[in-house]
């Protein structure tokens, strides 16, 4: 379980796009770095992230080692009614994590 900061407006307007900001605590080890002994530090990144609102997809994203450590994403969502924004991501080991935030649409 890594720390996630999910910034969603508490209240949005129905049908009007709103911005979401996401910060995930993760080293996103690229596999390119070497340790003190000169050995390559193995790749270890979050490689897939899916954002859904009220069960329907906002986007699905493939992440590569070129995504910087402690990934920050900002994107736009549109809601027709109140619901839950869900972020689900998986890393190279297959470990999944889900974060949610309630959004009220008026």
């Amino acid at each position, binding site marked *: 379980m890594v*720390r996630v*900061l999910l910034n969603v407006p508490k209240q949005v307007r129905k049908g009007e796009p709103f911005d979401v*900001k996401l*910060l995930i*605590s993760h*080293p996103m080890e690229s596999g390119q770095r070497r340790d003190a002994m000169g050995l390559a530090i193995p790749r270890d990144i979050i490689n897939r992230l899916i954002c859904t609102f009220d069960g329907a997809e906002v986007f699905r994203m493939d992440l590569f080692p070129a995504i910087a450590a*402690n990934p*920050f994403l900002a994107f736009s969502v549109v809601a027709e009614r109140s619901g839950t924004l869900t972020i689900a991501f998986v890393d190279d080991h297959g470990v999944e994590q889900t974060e949610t935030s309630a959004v009220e649409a008026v």
Partner: protein
Amino acid sequence: MKRLLPLFLLCTIAAAPRSGYDDASAETRAMQDDDSANPGFLWVREGEAQWSKPAGPQVKSCASCHGDAPVSMRGVAARYPIVDRTLNRPLTLDQRIAQCRTERQQAEPLPSESDAALGLAAYVGLQSRGMPVRINAAGAVVEAGRRLFETRMGQLNLSCAQCHDDRAGLKLAGAVIPQGHPNGYPEYRLEWQTMGSLNRRLRNCMVGVRAEPFPPDSREMAELALFLAVRAEGLNVETPAVRP
């Protein structure tokens, strides 16, 4: 004109210190300015959790004694390091937090540079954000730090002052040399791709000039930290800062 430049810069620092924030690119500054985009806040939230986490045989958390951090810790980071009168040596905020943990909570110390330690320091530091650095120290103990700052060291035989006083604002390998103030620590450094303490940065600098770094809990590190804070008076606390 070139010979007068270091003199001019020295006078400039004496007049008004310049935060590393002003030397960073617009993108880096933007990263710091937005709390929902500042990676340092991952550690602030961690620190917030640590603040209420009980530890030690009496099962006490920071909150047990200090209550609400935004109230009890307001202004604290802005006046650290302090001078410990009994030991007659400076004490940094990191050391004070560690001391509280081992002596008052009687708990295992948090490993230095761990997420928990950096988080707690970031959370406490945040409670002084925007407040001016104001240190209650003068005389020999500050002068000891100044001497360290001005002493050449390492194989490259450079003192802190030679880069961060005399050549602040000039470039070293494409990067602007900042004045080197401690007002944003612990800070998220893009070079580290993570959060780090002032100790880590000072260690980098010393390794950079090929000097043996002072041990983290040494008197020298504390004296240097105290002098740096006095030198930074006039700047506001920016914790958690973002730097290149």
